[in-house]
Every structure is written in C-alpha cells, then in structure tokens.
C-alpha cells in the first residue's frame, strides 16, 4: 500500500514540477508590466526593452501624423489633462490605425517597449478608454483588443 502511495506521490510531484517549469518559462515572455508613466519615467533606464503596458493621458495638440502614412507621434503624460501638475511626459511613436476614441485628453493604455528615444508602441497596441458616461459595458474600441 505504501509503495503505491510513493509511486503516486512521485508521479504527482513530477507532473507538478513539469507544470510549474512550463508555466514559469511561458510567463517569462508572456507577461507585460502594467505601469503608469510616472512609475516608468522616474528611472527610464531600468525599464528599457521590457514589455510594458503604459497608462497615461494624451496631451492635446501633441498628436502628429506624417502626411500620407500611418505614422503617429504624440506625447503622453501621467496625470489627467485637467490636473494641476501633469507628471512625467513620454514621447510615443506608433504606426497603424488608431481607435476612434484616441484624441487629445484621452486616457490610453499603450502596449510596447521603452527605448532611448521614447516609447515605441507595438502594432495595434493603442487602447483608448471611451470618455463614456455609461457606467458599464463601455467597451474601448481598439484594434487588437
């Protein structure tokens, strides 16, 4: 009887270890840090190259679009635009279609990586929250969500 339990225990142990190992290895490249602009820009070097989801607010008037392309450059700050102090600001580059709700003052979450010359957003990595008054089901429309 004890023999059987040892066998069972060993099998379970091996399975659990294998599972934990696999989970660990996939979590390594499957996860992204969810950060606010301030948290990252206090020490930008530490975050360069890491997969990030960056939360901030688009500064009105900062959105630039290159003529006849889908290349965008804009600035994002930590605090809502109406706030007294704006917090840190980061320059963002993006190529692709932006959601309808993406405009000055919009609350955005950007998926991408920080580089020495600003935040580089992945394709389809712009998610803008609706400035919606609906308490529920106000789904942010974004390519890739």
């Amino acid at each position, binding site marked *: 009887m004890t023999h059987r339990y040892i066998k069972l225990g060993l099998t379970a142990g091996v399975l659990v270890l294998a599972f934990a190992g696999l989970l660990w290895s*996939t*979590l390594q490249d*499957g*996860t*992204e*840090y*969810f*950060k606010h602009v301030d948290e990252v820009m206090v020490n930008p070097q530490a975050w360069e190259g890491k997969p990030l*989801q960056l939360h901030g607010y688009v500064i009105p008037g900062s959105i630039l679009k290159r003529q*006849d*392309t*889908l290349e965008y450059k804009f600035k994002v700050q930590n*605090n*809502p635009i*109406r*706030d*007294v102090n704006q917090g840190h600001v980061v320059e963002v580059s993006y190529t*692709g*279609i*932006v959601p*309808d*709700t993406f405009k000055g003052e919009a609350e955005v979450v950007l*998926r991408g990586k920080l580089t020495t010359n600003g935040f580089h957003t992945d*394709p*389809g990595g712009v*998610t803008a*929250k*609706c*400035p*919606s*008054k*609906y*308490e*529920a*089901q*106000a*789904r*942010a*429309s*974004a*390519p*890739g*969500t």
Partner: protein
Amino acid sequence: MASLGTFLLLAAFVTCSYSAVISVAGARRRSRRLIESGIGAFYLICAIMTAATAVLINAFLTGDFSIKYVAHNSDSVQPLFYKLTSYWGGLDGSIMFWVFLLSIFGSLAVYVNRERHRELIPYVVATISVVNMFFLFLMVIHKNPFTTYLTQVPADGEGLNPLLQNAYMAIHPPSLYTGFVGMTIPFAFGIAALITGHLDDSWLRAVRRWTMFSWLFLSFGLILGMIWAYEELGWGGYWAWDPVENAALLPWFTATAFLHSVMVQERRSMLRVWNVTLVIVTYFLTIFGTFMTRSGVVQSVHAFGDDPILARLFIGFMVIILTFSFGLVIWRLPLLKARNELDSWLSREAAFLVNNWVMLFAALFVLFGTMFPTLSEAVTGTRLTVAGAFFNKWMTPVGLVLLMLTGVGPLLAWRRSSFDKIAPQFLWPGLSGLVALAIAALYFKIPVWPSGLCFGLCGFVAGTIVQEFWKGAAIRSRNSGTDLLTALVGLVGKNKRRYGGYIVHVGITLICFGFAGNARKLDEQVLLKPGQETKIGKYTIKSNGVKVADDGQKQMTTAYLTVFVDGKEIDGLYPAKWAYRRHEQEPTTEVAIRRTPVEDLYAVLGGFDLADQSVTLQLVVNPLVNWVWFGFGIMALGTGIALLPERSFAFALAKMPAEAAATTVALLCVLLLSGTSLSAQSNMGGDMNTRTSFYARTPFEKEMQHEIVCTCGACGHQTIAECRKDPCATSHEMRGQLAAMIDSGVHDKDQIIQAFIAKYGTEEMLGAPVDRGFSRLAWLLPYVVGASSAVAIGFAAVKWSRKPDEAAVTAPAAIDSALEERIDDELRDLD
C-alpha cells in the same frame, strides 16, 4: 409603479424564505402537506417575479424616467425592441432577470420531477429559494432596479449604449444567462441528493437534460458574443481572452466535463464524488464569473465599474456555497464510494477521465490567467498582465488534446480493450487523419504545429464519427432488412444521446477546423488615396474615395472600395463610420465583410480625410471563419437530438429544447446566408449638456463628489457629481469648494466632510449617513436584518422539522413571531 416593483421584490423575498423553511420542515417531518405548501410558494415566486418583470418592462415601454434604471438604460426615441432588451442592459436589471429566469427554471424542474424524485424535491426547492433570496437581497439593499429620482425627474433617458444596440447583443445576454442560471438546477439537485443521502444515479438522470440544455445556451451565448465582437467591434478577430469572455468560458469547461463523466457513473458507478464536485464547481464558477466581471476585481476593456459592496456580498455568498457544498460532500463521502475501479487505462472510462482532467485543467488555467494581474499585484505589488498570446500558447495544446480524445474515445470499449482489438478500429480514422495532415502540410503549405496538426486531428475525428455511423447503420440495415439511410435514421432515433453526441462532436470538429484557419490569417493596415490599389492575399483592393451622407439620424461616412481577383472585378466593399447625433464622440464602426466558405474578406474604415479623399483601412483575410458559426449550428442540432425525450411526449415539456435547437439552427443559417451584417443601431437621445466644470481629476475627488449631495433643492438630492443639469450653480460651487480643498492639500475624507457640515450646518448634504456612531446603524440595519432572517430561517427550519409531537404549533403566525423576536433581540444587542 416603482413602489409596486419594490414591493413585489420584497414579497418575492418573503415568499422565498417561506418556501425554503417550509420545504425543509416538511421534508424532515415527512409531512406531505408542508412540502406541497413549499412547492406552492415556490410557484408563487415565479408568478411574483413575472409580475415584477411586467412592471419593469411597462416602465421601459411607457418611458417612466422617474425610475433611475429606466432613465440610465433607455430613452424615448429608442425602438420598441431595444426598449424591451434594456431590461437586461444594466446590472440591476440583469440581476432581476437572473432571479426571474431562475424562478421559471426552478418551477419547471420541480414540476417535471415532482413525482419521480419525490424525496429530493423539498431540498431542491429550498436550495433554489435560498439562491433566489441572495439575489433578491442584493437587489433590495444595493441594486434595486426600481429606485426612483425623488424630485426632479429627467425629461428623457440617457439611452442604451450604442454598441449594445445590435441584434446579437440583444439575444447574447439572455442566452448566456439561460446557461448560467440553468446550472443552478443541477446544483440544487446535487445538494438535495447529498442532504437526503439518495446518492444513487437517479438525481443524475434528473439533471442530465438540464445540464445539456444549459450547456447549449451557454455555448450559444459564447458564439453570439464572438459574432458580435467580429461584426461590431471591428478588429478582425472574435476571441481575445478578455476577462469577461473567460468568465463565461470557465463553467463551459466544467459543464462539458460533467456531461462526459456522468456517462461513466451511469455505466460503471464510478466517479461519484467527482460528478457531484463538478456540478458544484460549475455552479460556483457561474457565480464567480459574475463576481469577477461585476465587482471590479479584474481590469477589463469591458470596464464594468468598481463595486466594493457588491464584491463583498458576492464573496460572502461564494464562501457559503463552497463551505456548505463541500462540507456536505465530505459528510457523505462514505455513501459516495465508487462501486467499481478502473480496470484498464485502455478503456473508454479512462478516456473520459483524461478528458475530464484536461477540461478541469483548462478551466483552472483560464481562471489563473484571468486572475493573474490581480494575483501578481497582491503578491509582488507590481501589476503584471498576461496577453492573449500567453493563453494561446497554453490553450492550443489543450484544445488539440481534447480534439484528439474526441476521436479516440468512441473507438475504445468500456472496461478494457486490447491493442489487437482496437488496431483495426483505428485504421480508417487514422488514415483519414494522416491524409488531412498531408494535404494541409504539403499542398497548402500550412505549418504542422499547430494548425496542420489541428487539420489532421479534424480528419481523424471525422473518420471516427463516420465509421461509427457507418458501422451502426450497416448492422441495423442487415438486421432489419432496410436500406442504409432508413437504418441510419432509425439508429439515431434509437440512441439519441449517443448519436446526438456524435453530431455535437462533428460541430466541435468544424469549429476547430475554423480555428485552424487562423494560421493563414492576413492583417494589414493601409492608407489609400482615390484610385490607389493594395493587395492582400489574392485580392486587389482599389479605393474610389469616401462619401458622406446624412439620414437625419446620423452622419455616415462610407469608403467605396472595389475588389478585384486576377484583374476581374468581383465585388464592392463599403466599410463605414457612423456618427450619431448627440453621440458624435463615439462613432460606430460598420465593418464590411465579403463572406465565402473559404475565407472572409474583412474591411474596417479606420480613418479618412475628406480633403484629399484618402482612407485608412484595416484589411483582414480570415480563412474558414464561417465554419466556426456553422459548426455551432451542427452542435445545436446534435444537442437537440440528444435532448429529445426517450419516449415521445412522455413529458411534453422536455421537448422544448429540441425545438429551440431547431430554431437556433434555422436562425444561424439565415444569419449566415444573408451575408449582411445586422447593424441595428438607431438614433439615441442622451444629453451632452453635462459639460460643466470641475470634473473629478483624481479617484479621491471622484469618490468625494459622489459622497456629497447638492443642496440646490431642485435636483432631488443628486450627488454633486451627478447634478450638472441646466447647469446647476450650487453644485458647481460645491464642486469648486471641494476641488479647492483638495488642491490646498486636504486629503482626509473626514476633514472634508466636517468642513462641509460646518459650512452648511447640517448633515443634509451627505450622500449617505456617516459611517460612525449612531449613523452606523443605518449602514448595518439591512445587513443585520438580512443576516438575522437567514439565521432565523435556519433556526425555524430545524426547530419546526422535529418530529410532530416535539414541535409546537404549526400556524404560520408563529414563524413570524419567532422571526420578529429574533430580529428584535439582534437589534437590541446592537443598540
């Protein structure tokens, strides 16, 4: 009307408590009369909820905007259809809809089974009544859909969210709810079986159909959500592993596992603990899913607001479910011993067992992934999110294993097989799988992992199912002397469950076939000027510019695209953006889709420039996507066949799902064939004059704005966050004071409240009584009453169910006095 609604909810709550107590008492005293009375009260709940539903729908139809829920979720110009569906458009109403459905399903289940499972019925009634009590309690104290504006009633409502004004979205929530709520019935029967100790297989027979029925609607709800995401949101896909999607998927996994393992118990009397556990877990996951999406625990793009009170109530309820149910399971473990052991790993029951483990693993994994951001924040303090890629990486192999088991299971015999015996069984399915894999990999050059393998496995499963049908029909035709086709129909009619199940497998295979098409998905974003062309896959797309039209309701900007294949013009695509009057900030995306069985060409108008007529387009080629929808149609057909009663008209009610399934198929076929996207938006009201100053800039300021009530006297005690009508000078001033205080560095809630009390001299402007001293009683009272009535009910149920000679009088008045005494005691203690 609103007070009638609230009254009906309270009446339903009281009736539920009565029915719970009297049923338990009746069961323990073996009194037929008490049990009948409990059942009667149970039917009465259904009647009361129907009346309450009628009141709410009437309020929507007549536009009674004095009811907040009606004002928030509809407006006067909304079409009739969406006025009706606004019933479940928000949280309050959807909880009420939940109770309404549960009371109907409960009554049906009790009515159908009242003779056959007489010993279980009182506890089924009690369980469902207690569940109903929880939701009714939630509504009455926290989310009452009949809450009214006290004085100034808005002239018009805010309208239902434009994204929800879509035919799919109108039927998607009720379908999901039907699935979720239906899972309560198996749970109630499981609990009843555990309490009474009647743990033979009879309770399983009672719930099998219910589980199948709920499972069908859960699947239907999931598919509708996918179609909606595909056609309405316009990002080119249909599944994104969003927490809200995952919440609905979790019980689907465990319910599917249960539908399989139940067969093992019926055949071999094994897995008895497991089956009860699956029923409990499935029910728990339906509640957990609701909790997860509605409480703000998980961040989602669906952005359902934070609601800590709701979260706490749900946590309490979930803890009770888990301790109570698993306590019962542990107590009844001796009765749940398996009568047989697994003879061999090469047997059908072993295949079912593996299938169950994989299903459960899938459920746990999705749960883990969904909760991961919350977990990581709790453990490490840093919020880590997992992307869809993480789920795909894990769920792809899980899905492939399940697909393989779909093909392997039917080929294995019960109890034990030997390799010699099964080798010929595997010959044809194996060959068809290999051929499919070879065609995919060599001819279509699809990578073997994972899509090629998926095609191969689809071939294998298809081979298995065809072989099963062929063999069965051949034997039947030989024995009965009929032709093959008649034999086939007879075969399915004779073993509806088995062959219905196989047809469901065909549907699943087709859905996987559709998923595998993702390997060849193309996705491009381009900017085109009039006359310019772009190529995607075999298609050449030429832009002819944009046109703006206005139909009085909305401004429609449409891109005119021509599609060429090999230089021949084959079609035109007209993706658009519609900006509704008064909703110009939220334009809706009208996707243009060219559907074929092979692939969809999908075009989204991402942006446009009227000056030079250039358009920004997202173009997607989605191979095989229509097979996912079609596969569901087949799945529904199979479930319908499995649900058909063994003896026709044995009980007419159980026949309903079959017809529902047929309707479903018909509906899906119509949707597929029409080839048009059903876009049913309409003009909605909603006022934009909420643009006065001092919007909350921080969560703290927002919280405070919701704490303080405007003193203008005209708005009917709205908070200063809400009172922005006409613009209101008083609330404007108050918001200004609040902002100034916060700017000056006051970040203490009490300090701000004290300052406001000092300035205005009363507590009048507090949105809620201060949670301190005597005022705390106001906070505690509803909870105390709720909790003590629950205790009192339990107490009464036990006391009243002693043997007749021990018990006191049985007049209902005595219950009231016992309850009142108890509540009195509790309240006195508080003071």
